[in-house]
């Protein structure tokens, strides 16, 4: 076993940390919270220039041929700063499945655009139940000649309001096995008969309702095989869970650092509150939980990187991160006292984002259920 990063990975981490702390201060994040678009196009282009958008693409598509573990490390740094760019939507939810399941034409056409920061993508998956389950995909696509007509509604679609393309999970066939009959389409987000509205959330990060009224999608726009789309979605969900977990891991570390620094500065009863065991033990508990998330995360990301079946490890990491992120925020607000409950302080911003982190990439119930099944229960 080896818990260390390679020299290159260390460099990636340090340079990402340095870049994001100067280019993306929290004040800017909070400002974009209230912005209609909610993302920073300038930052997005700078990230493209740094090669981050194509980090895991082969060189022929304008990428840097990095590993999934590299991507995880980068994502952790982005989570630390709550970076307001559609990176997760574009890369984790769409570019990774395009790389794995896309046709050569699709890859050639779309991946270089993504690497250059010229196209924003997202995945429209969830419907009214909000559950990551095959049975919950009800939106229909009906074949008419060479075109499918997509009709129905998707909810909680991240960044759809700024997207150029949307991957849509639709039911194309009714079959007994609910995993069968699902197809994944690439749809132009500006296509006629589509309506995109923002669903206001406590996190301020943008999620949308996307309504399809007989929207046309050509056969060529299918990713993977028609009616076998669950395979692609399963691939996406495993990676999305890990990368969301990475964001949460970075965010947790940031919150712990914030609470620990505050405990050293804040004087009450003539001494720093961090000298009291009630505060110390709370911080120690937080540290243990944050490290638990980190190691579970790295194990899962490593497994994907080297191509091992990692379903169990992935779900363990995400279920843990969901629980810990929320708990860490609550502890940190408690340590900060009233200032932590204000609009001016960062800690509340993280807390408001906790729910978005929890449900993106699968909620705790779903991941614990996967763990239970894998345990043989």
């Amino acid at each position: 076993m080896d818990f260390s990063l390679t020299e290159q990975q260390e460099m990636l981490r340090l340079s990402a940390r340095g870049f994001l702390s100067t280019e993306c201060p929290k004040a800017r994040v909070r400002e974009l919270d209230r912005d209609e678009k909610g993302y920073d196009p300038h930052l997005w282009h700078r990230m493209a220039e740094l090669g981050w958008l194509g980090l895991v693409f082969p060189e022929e598509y304008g990428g840097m041929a990095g590993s999934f573990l590299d991507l995880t490390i980068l994502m952790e740094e982005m989570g630390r700063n709550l970076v307001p760019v559609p990176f997760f939507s574009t890369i984790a939810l769409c570019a990774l499945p395009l790389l794995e399941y896309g046709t050569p034409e699709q890859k050639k056409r779309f991946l270089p655009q993504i690497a250059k920061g010229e196209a924003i993508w997202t995945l429209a998956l969830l419907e009214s139940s909000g559950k990551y389950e095959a049975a919950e995909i009800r939106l229909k696509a009906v074949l008419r000649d060479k075109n499918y007509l997509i009709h129905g509604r998707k909810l909680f679609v991240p960044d759809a309001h700024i997207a150029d393309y949307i991957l849509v999970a639709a039911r194309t066939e009714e079959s007994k096995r609910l995993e069968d009959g699902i197809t994944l389409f690439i749809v132009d987000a500006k296509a006629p008969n589509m309506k995109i509205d923002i669903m206001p959330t406590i996190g301020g990060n943008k999620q949308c309702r996307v309504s399809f009224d007989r929207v046309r999608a050509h056969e060529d726009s299918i990713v993977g095989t028609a009616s076998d789309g669950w395979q692609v979605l399963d691939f996406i969900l495993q990676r999305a869970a890990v990368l969301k977990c990475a964001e949460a891991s970075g965010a947790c570390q940031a919150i712990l650092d914030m609470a620990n620094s505050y405990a050293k500065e804040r004087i009450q009863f003539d001494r720093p509150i961090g000298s009291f065991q009630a505060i110390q033990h709370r911080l120690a508990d937080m540290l243990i939980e944050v490290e638990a998330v980190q190691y579970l995360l790295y194990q899962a990301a490593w497994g994907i990187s080297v191509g091992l079946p990692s379903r169990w490890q992935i779900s363990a990491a995400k279920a843990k991160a969901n629980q810990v992120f929320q708990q860490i925020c609550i502890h940190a607000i408690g340590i900060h006292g009233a200032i932590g409950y204000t609009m001016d302080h960062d800690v509340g911003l993280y807390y408001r984002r906790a729910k978005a982190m929890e449900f993106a990439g699968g909620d705790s119930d779903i991941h614990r259920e996967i763990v239970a099944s894998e345990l043989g229960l």
Partner: protein
Amino acid sequence: MNFGLSQKELTLREEIRRFAQAELPPGWRRTTLIDGECRDFDFEVSMSRKLAQRGWLVMSWPEQYGGRDASLMEQTVYEMEVAYWGIPGALMGISGTQWVGPCLMLFGTEEQKKKYLPLIASGEKDGIWCTGYSEPNAGSDFANIRTRAVKEGDNYIINGQKIWTSAAHRARWCWLAARTDFNVAKKHHGISIFIVDMKSPGVTVNPILNYYGRHHFNEVFFDNVEVPVSNLVGEENRGWYLLMQSLAFERRSIAPMTYGNFKWVLEQLIEYANQTKYKSRLLSQNPMFRNKLAELAIDLETLKLFAFQVAWRIGRGEIPVYESSRNKIMSDEVMKRVAIVGAEILGIYSQADPDSEWAQMNGAVHGAYLGFPGQAIAAGTAEVEKSIIAQFKLGLPKSY
């Protein structure tokens, strides 16, 4: 990064599995091996001897002292696996293999190393140690110890009382902390470490039964016990550093053992839930139990990663500071959660005597339920460990 075991480590695990299947009686009853002790002492020693013959008992020690220069990673795999199978005698009453030996290698004289290390490595009764740290007024505030050692000629004369001394009734030697100087500015100065022959005149061992009637720890009295000066370990009055080092060694080994032991218990619980019906539905189909067992598995996985991370750091020549405390806390949490969730799954039968026919799974959960509150105190309470993390990792002021 790499989270896989090496071929060598996988082979070792397989060898231990085969050893356990060949050497343990069918239906081996483990009850509470978290006490590290089996009730058939002769059987326990026979197993220590066999483990020693295979070169496993102290595998990470240098060959010259009876080990086989194994990595700490291999040692961790060994600890996980012997705990998983419940092989008794794997720790020889704990002290000798886990911290006396490693501390002697760091701080002992050549003569001490030559005399005591091979004894421990042999797996024989004469290699069993106990550790004399706690006293009635020196628990978490351990620097408070009053047991005194006064130098007279070629001997130290030791007077005082130790308490909660695990395995003192089995041990041939005691790794003893005593005060050699009372006139010190700070009370953790003036402490020294001695090797005491438990057969010395003036040593009295009285059993203390734990709340479920097991004899695991003792009180030990020292009444004018003569100890040769050659049995002082390290420098006089500078024992505190050795103590801290020994506690770090002790805390390191807890996580792998707890992981192995409770991985077995969790597997038993899963099997039980897959076979037991309530209202014509298997317990394993009850979403509440599925959820809880999944959470336990995630906690155990965390403990495993923590255990390997410490072994990895030490293997790189680094000294883990707060990690051993972190792992101790996590071990205690895992024990507690498995015991409590396990008892919930067993329902009303969770109150059965672990030795009775009413206790499912050979009393594994019952033993854990009885044992965990005590284990959580040994080697440092959660409160002490959290204060260590706060001070040494988070950089907060010392608070005790």
